């Protein structure tokens, strides 16, 4: 049989057909089809959840100062879910979106996985992995050099909190080293704290007994948008009794306003005027608590000082704030002001609170004082359902620090940020002033080395350009951030801390609940990467510095330090995860305040001594916002949402997923504008526009929103990251790039609530 081309093809075809027919009669094709389907399920990039034993570990969330208890679900030791801890006194099982999506901070790609040393220019993102020994030696070496040159005060440290043993350990390090420049990021709580101090003479954490109040007058506090402890606030909304009223006063219909009993759209920045207007009505109609005002208050009526000089009292001063005038200032109609004042004064347990949105910006002292005065008028100071202050926690005890001569000289230097100076005697930290001071400094920068932990000033400080310029002047920046945030990405060294589920830490609650609650954050998982507890890093550096600095840290590590400082409380804290200290309110008839007059001071004499030229009484002067009104016809205000984290911790990507298309669309942030204003500007829904302020410009899309006052435009905090990971960076605009800080004349804290802006269609 001779085979040529033609017959070869024939035979081959025959064989193939035979093979095909035969294979249909075998299991092979059917089995392979089945296997192929299963094979596709096993592609290596398909996530497969861990399977195994389910356990729970209790801890406390440290993503914000709220201090909510968490219950972490683990499978085979791997954390897979974060739930609210049911019996935790702060949140009672509730948890905010940030806490729920917290695992993304643990596993996400924005983690710094080992110590890093900068290569190339700052912010270029070129890093060299170094060992812990090398990184710690480099930082200690720099600190030793500055100390040897007699400039320990040129080392500054920015932290996120000043409560608990970690911040105290860092403070102790700075004291022993010789720098007074421990700077904590500011929040609205600072202004409220100061107002309480000025009126009640008590330094401590403000307590708002909201659970027991029946009429909540909120001057823009985002009760449902992340103010205070979000878990606690969710419970408040969840358990609202029909009689409980929440009045929300803010220029924009926020989620909080939408869920409140009543929303009053106010002209932004005029809250103090409204508070004083309400006081005017309450006093005029004699609705105030006479027992409290007559027996326990000072400065209500006109008074004469020891020099014979007569002063206007609060009652006289508020005569200027008649409803007609306040109506013109605030944009709220006169009848509503009067009826609100009556309703507030007649409620059985009214409370007035302030701090805009999350409370990220301190706000003006006048405003906080005016709100405190309202609370005093209804006599709900140190009462159930009222306002009081818990003294700063002192549960941890440690030996005195002995410091050497260099440290002593350093500690005597004035603080760089001006806090506690003659100008701002009652303010403890003024991070917002730092960029301006650094940029204005002649010659060498007053900060030669900056240590940053639990803070992200390059993102959170207003006026990003000025902040960057200021940071450029600092020769040595060290970040302890577990994440590649904006500040870490601008540092010279990153000494990554453990992430929040990996580290041991005591967490004093700082969110206004009426008890002192100290929780213990216990590691729920061993460190995933080559990271180090920030406390251990500082102890290590102290030991490297030697001498008195080393002597101040006789502990081997943070855990030993924690156990020793908590002494006999450690066992209870470790076993129960929590210590609660009841906050005993003073007897109602035995009110004594620590002020000069031993009374609640409507006229805060402590403010008077701060060399204010005008009266110390709260007043309303429009906060001067930046920008020429002719050029910038609109006003841009930032707002906060529970779905976006505007603070030093960025959103978890899951949170960004929950943001509406009216807030973030693709890569564009949307700016909210009233339809009437949009019509005047020729802008339609979804139009792309250039948003310009005196501080910067950005491209935005326009969202028409009836819930914002005409002439005002609003954008959320928490977008526009430039660092972290591809899942966060480049989405929307960081509103801090468009806004500048405005210093409060009394406190020096930032009180900016907006900036002038213009919007042009492009």
């Amino acid at each position, binding site marked *: *049989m*001779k085979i*040529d081309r*033609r*017959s070869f093809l*024939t*035979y*081959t075809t*025959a*064989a*193939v*057909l*035979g*093979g*095909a*027919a*035969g*294979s249909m*009669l*075998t*299991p*092979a094709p059917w*089995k*392979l089809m*089945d*296997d*192929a389907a*299963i*094979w596709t*399920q*096993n592609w290596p990039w398909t996530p*497969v*959840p861990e*399977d195994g*034993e*389910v356990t729970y570990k209790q801890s406390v969330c440290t993503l914000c100062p709220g201090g909510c208890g968490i219950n972490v679900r683990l499978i085979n030791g791997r954390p897979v879910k974060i739930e609210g801890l049911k019996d935790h006194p702060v949140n009672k099982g509730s948890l905010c979106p940030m806490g729920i999506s917290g695992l993304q901070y643990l596993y996400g790609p924005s983690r710094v996985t080992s110590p890093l040393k900068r290569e190339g220019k700052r912010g270029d993102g070129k890093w060299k992995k170094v060992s812990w020994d090398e990184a710690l030696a480099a930082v200690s070496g720099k600190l030793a050099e500055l100390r040897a040159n007699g400039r320990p005060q040129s080392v500054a440290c920015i932290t996120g909190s000043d409560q608990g043993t970690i911040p105290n350990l860092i403070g102790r390090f700075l004291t022993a080293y010789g720098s007074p420049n421990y700077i904590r990021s500011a929040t609205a709580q600072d202004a409220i704290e100061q107002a309480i101090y000025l009126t009640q003479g008590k330094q401590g954490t403000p307590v708002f007994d909201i659970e027991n109040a029946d009429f909540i007058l909120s001057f823009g506090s985002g009760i449902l948008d992340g103010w205070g402890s979000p878990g606690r606030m969710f419970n408040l909304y969840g358990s609202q009794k029909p009689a409980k009223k929440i009045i929300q006063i803010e220029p924009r219909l926020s989620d909080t306003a939408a869920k409140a009993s009543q929303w009053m759209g106010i002209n932004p920045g005029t809250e103090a005027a409204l508070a004083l207007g309400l006081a005017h009505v309450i006093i005029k109609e004699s609705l105030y608590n006479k027992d409290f005002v007559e027996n326990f208050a000072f400065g209500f009526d006109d008074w004469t000082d020891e020099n014979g000089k007569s002063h206007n009292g609060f009652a006289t001063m508020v005569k200027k704030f008649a409803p007609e005038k306040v109506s013109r200032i605030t944009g709220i109609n006169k009848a509503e002001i009067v009826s609100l004042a009556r309703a507030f004064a007649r409620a059985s347990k009214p409370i007035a609170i302030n701090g805009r949105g999350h409370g990220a910006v301190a706000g003006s002292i006048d405003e906080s004082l005016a709100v405190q005065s309202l609370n005093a008028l209804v006599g709900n100071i140190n009462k159930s359902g009222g306002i009081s202050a818990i003294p700063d926690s002192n549960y941890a005890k440690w030996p005195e620090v002995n410091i050497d001569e260099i440290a002593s000289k350093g500690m005597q230097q004035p603080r760089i940020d001006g806090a506690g100076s003659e100008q701002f005697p009652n303010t403890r930290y003024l991070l917002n002033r730092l960029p301006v001071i650094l940029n204005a400094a002649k010659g060498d920068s007053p900060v030669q080395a900056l240590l940053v932990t639990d803070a992200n000033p390059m993102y959170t400080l207003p006026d990003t350009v000025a902040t960057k310029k200021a940071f450029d002047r600092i020769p040595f920046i060290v970040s302890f951030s577990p994440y590649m945030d904006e500040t870490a990405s601008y540092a010279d060294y990153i000494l990554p801390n453990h992430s929040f589920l990996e580290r041991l830490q005591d967490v004093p609650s700082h969110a206004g609940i009426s008890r002192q609650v100290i929780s213990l954050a216990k590691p729920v998982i061993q460190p995933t990467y080559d990271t180090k507890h920030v406390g251990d890093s500082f102890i290590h550096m102290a030991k490297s510095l030697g001498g008195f600095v080393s002597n101040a840290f006789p502990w081997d590590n943070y855990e030993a330090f924690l156990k020793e400082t908590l002494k006999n409380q450690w066992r209870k804290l470790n076993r129960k995860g929590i210590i609660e200290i009841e906050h005993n309110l003073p007897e109602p008839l035995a009110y004594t305040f620590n002020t000069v007059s031993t009374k609640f001071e409507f006229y805060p004499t402590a403010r008077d001594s701060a060399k204010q030229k005008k009266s110390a009484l709260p007043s309303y002067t429009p906060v001067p916002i930046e920008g020429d009104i002719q050029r910038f016809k609109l006003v841009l205000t930032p707002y906060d949402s529970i779905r976006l984290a505007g603070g030093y911790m960025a959103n978890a990507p899951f949170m960004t997923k929950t943001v509406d298309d009216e807030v973030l669309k693709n890569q564009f942030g949307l700016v909210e504008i009233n339809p009437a204003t949009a019509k005047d500007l020729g802008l339609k829904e979804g139009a792309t526009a250039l948003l310009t302020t005196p501080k910067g410009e950005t491209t935005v899309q326009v969202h028409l929103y009836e819930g914002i006052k005409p002439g005002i435009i609003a954008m959320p905090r928490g977008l526009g990251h430039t660092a972290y990971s591809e899942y966060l960076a480049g989405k929307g605009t960081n509103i801090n790039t468009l806004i500048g800080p405005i210093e409060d004349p009394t406190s020096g804290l930032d009180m900016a609530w907006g900036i002038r802006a213009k919007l042009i269609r492009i």
Partner: protein
Amino acid sequence: MSSTDQNQTVSPEATPKAAPDSVNPEPKVHESPASKSSGWAVFMFFMIGLVGSLLSGWILFPEILYSKKNQPIDFNHAVHLDMVSDGCESCHYFRDDGSFAGMPNMGDCIDCHEEAQTDDPEEIKFVDEYVTPGIEVPWLNHSKQPDCVFFSHSAHVIGADMSCKSCHGDIGTSEHTRVYEENRLTGYSRDIWGHSISRLGKSRHEDPKPMKMNDCAKCHKEETGHKGACFQCHK
């Protein structure tokens, strides 16, 4: 009988065109005996293909599809079963929350095997290579199902009072581990599909039962009268 004749009758290409071709002298050049495909030959090749694929599909395919692996340790179930009080559940237990622990892990083994108890080389190997360094034994699980399958041991063993044997076969009395046949494509054990590549016939009583979805459905139909809904297992 010449091959040409045959070709003209059998070859499909020859029949219709045969008449015109025979008129035209030129194509006759190609009509040499060798140039025509033989009908028998074509059939033969067809059969070669057919039989070849049948053989490879039935015999070679299973050999190629599955790789053969041995367990890291030659485990003796019989010895262990004799020494425990609670049967299979002594090691393959239910956790407090009702979930099934499956293969015991090092934490379970270490209770007895912190040190070798016999001079059995497999036990010594187990202690030296896994217990002492604290490494989990990478057991090859004959019953492992894909991640999308949710199976509750609790519902079957506790709820329906089924014995382990009814699905896993008489593994408890085995003295040596079996060869683990791993599907090269899916990574799962041959046991899931069943040893018979055709899935025909009944498996022996002492053998593990196949565990494909149809097997679940069949048993459910028999026992409960209904195959069950998708979401009972695919959650």
